[in-house]
């Protein structure tokens, strides 16, 4: 890819070396591959538990996971797109569109919930396919395609609703984000959103560990080489955009439950998702990263927001602190992966 310096020097793989050397090299590579994000997460969680002794209880942890679920799901979607070497800036507006459309179409009728969810997934597939098509077939940079998609989605939804979202979400739709399975011993309640998060994680790990995940990384690392070795670059990237859009749909279903119907529900989520993925070791430009890292990054972001909340930091100052910490964390990660 243009302007890309030669890859960072890798530890010698030990072509002719002894088995022990090879193992050592593999262990070294493995240790470097562990994103720093998990260390940061542990520090943040311990810090939170000092401020809030109730945090390390089943309820505390589950509440935290429940709140992290939407951003973690978005981060997983962002991982696929970023790892394939692209950007998706449209997920935040897609979340807004899904929530607003669901409220308007279902209009509070519980019988409509399943068809509405099917409709949302259809919208997600359409948006992802469009993003992927323009990026791969028309060769418009994805930054621009998804930026234009952001404009178009915001414009279209407000055009349709006349500026103010109308309608309401049915109770059984809202339960997905709010309620959980009750009556379980010890932890009492497992929120549905945590179950959804686990399900999404499982699917994403299955995809990422399999052939598709390897093709994503190959395409992101060097799309020409991938194409020459027989990978359909366009198909891999379109798939990544569809996964990203679907993650936005799932996040929207959860957020519709806790946040309610507003035109601001998805604002800024695209940047949070990208930030989470990058905190988790995904490299912008593609070719490196992991699903678990992206989820870790989302958990770090959420822990950070929680901590700032505990200190009742003014929300404006919260922005400044977040900005500083993101730069610090990413630069630390950069030094680790490049071995400065």
């Amino acid at each position, binding site marked *: 890819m*243009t302007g890309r310096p030669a890859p960072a020097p890798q530890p010698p793989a030990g072509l002719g070396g002894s088995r022990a050397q090879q193992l050592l090299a593999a262990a070294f590579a493995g240790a470097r591959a562990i994103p720093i994000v998990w260390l940061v997460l542990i520090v943040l969680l311990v810090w939170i538990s000092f401020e809030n002794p109730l945090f390390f209880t089943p309820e505390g942890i589950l509440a935290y996971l429940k709140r992290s679920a939407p951003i973690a799901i978005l981060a997983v979607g962002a991982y696929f797109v970023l790892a394939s070497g692209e950007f998706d800036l449209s997920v935040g507006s897609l979340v807004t569109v899904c929530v607003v459309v669901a409220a308007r179409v279902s209009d509070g009728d519980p019988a409509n919930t399943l068809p509405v969810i099917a409709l949302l997934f259809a919208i997600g597939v359409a948006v992802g396919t469009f993003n992927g098509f323009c990026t791969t077939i028309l060769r418009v940079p994805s930054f621009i395609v998804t930026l234009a998609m952001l404009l178009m989605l915001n414009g279209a939804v407000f055009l349709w609703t006349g500026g103010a979202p109308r309608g309401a979400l049915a109770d059984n739709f809202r339960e997905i984000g709010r309620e959980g399975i009750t009556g379980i011993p010890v932890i009492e309640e497992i929120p549905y959103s945590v179950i959804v998060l686990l399900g999404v994680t499982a699917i994403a790990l299955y995809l990422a560990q399999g052939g598709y995940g390897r093709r994503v990384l190959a395409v992101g690392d060097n799309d020409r080489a991938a194409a020459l070795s027989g990978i359909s670059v366009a198909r891999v990237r379109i798939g990544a955009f569809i996964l990203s859009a679907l993650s936005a749909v799932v996040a929207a279903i959860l957020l519709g439950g806790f946040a309610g119907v507003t035109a601001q529900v998805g604002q800024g989520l695209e940047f949070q998702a990208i930030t989470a993925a990058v905190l988790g070791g995904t490299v912008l430009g593609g070719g490196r990263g992991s699903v678990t890292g992206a989820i870790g990054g989302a958990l770090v972001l959420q822990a950070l927001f929680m901590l700032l909340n505990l200190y009742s930091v003014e929300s404006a100052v919260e922005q400044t602190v977040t*900005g500083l910490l993101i730069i610090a964390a990413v630069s630390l990660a950069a030094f680790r992966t490049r071995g400065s």
Partner: protein
Amino acid sequence: VNRAVTRPRPQLPLASAFGRVTDGLAAIARTTSGPVYLVLAVVFLACLIAVSIDGGEFLTVDAIREMLVRSVALGIVAVGQTLVILGASLDLSVAYVVSLASIIGAETMADQESRIALGVGAVLLFGAGVGLVNGLVITKLRVNAFIATLGMALILRGIIESRYQGPVSGIPNGFEDLGFESWGPVPVSVILLFAIVAAGWFLLRYTRFGNRLYAVGGNEEVAKLSGVRTHRVIIAAHILCAVAAAVTGLFLASRLGAGSPLVGTDGGYDLESIAAVVLGGTYLLGGRGGVLGTIAGVFILAMLDHTFNQLEVNPFAKDVARGVIIIAAVAAYSVRWRRRRRRQEAAGTGPGEPAPAPALGGVGAR
């Protein structure tokens, strides 16, 4: 270094038909920004026809002046953005730089004409400082430009929102002239825009910095191996970009007669300036393009805006249409570029540039 590769273009199929009409047109079409001017002409004709059918008048002096003035703010930011994008970087913090610059200008001038120079100086210094930090974080701390400038945007946003809720007064009357005065029929602000565009063009075309910026954006590793101090070039581009955003903040402060915490974000200058740069034919991965294309991109956006207003199109439909037009135009450039490349490869005279990959790999690699 790189200009020999990027500048002279063989005759284009699309442009050659026009090129036969006049040599001048052909010369324009051979530059990177040539096709952008074709798009500009097409958009102009479409807008002219649309407004005429609607029964309005498109080409009044007032309308042109209004379009130009509207282009000034975005145009200045976009010239700065062009520099960083040419260097395979980008700056997402410009919108907040614009806002904070307008506030700093108003606070420093404090309603006194004698402090205008001080205010301008403070704002420019602020811009240079932000750009320096962006550049250092990107080059020395090796944070990806996207994340580094996004982080800077959050930092500035926090500072603005925690300290300023409403407009900040303090712009003296003498300074408001910049926004409203005209020299003859030409508004002073338009002259400012053209001066900055000319400066950007000169910088890219005739200075060492310009050469090096194209080289760094084209291939940072090769530039470094050829002896370019790539970090300095990138840092300088970021400083110029943030200073340009700060100048826009001053201009908007003089138009509004006050500093405003929302003026930058309301204008959407961060993403809009990137859209204008790309609409202007500059390659998002760096190394190819220029300010003349960018300014045409800005004019295209301003013309669309003006036409939609004339036709009283719903503001939300406007966003939809704008999105479609941006994608279509960039797709057209990209198809054209690939077609030409394929022909050059077939003829064995291809320039040593890699195929355009639709990603921000150059930024990611840093």
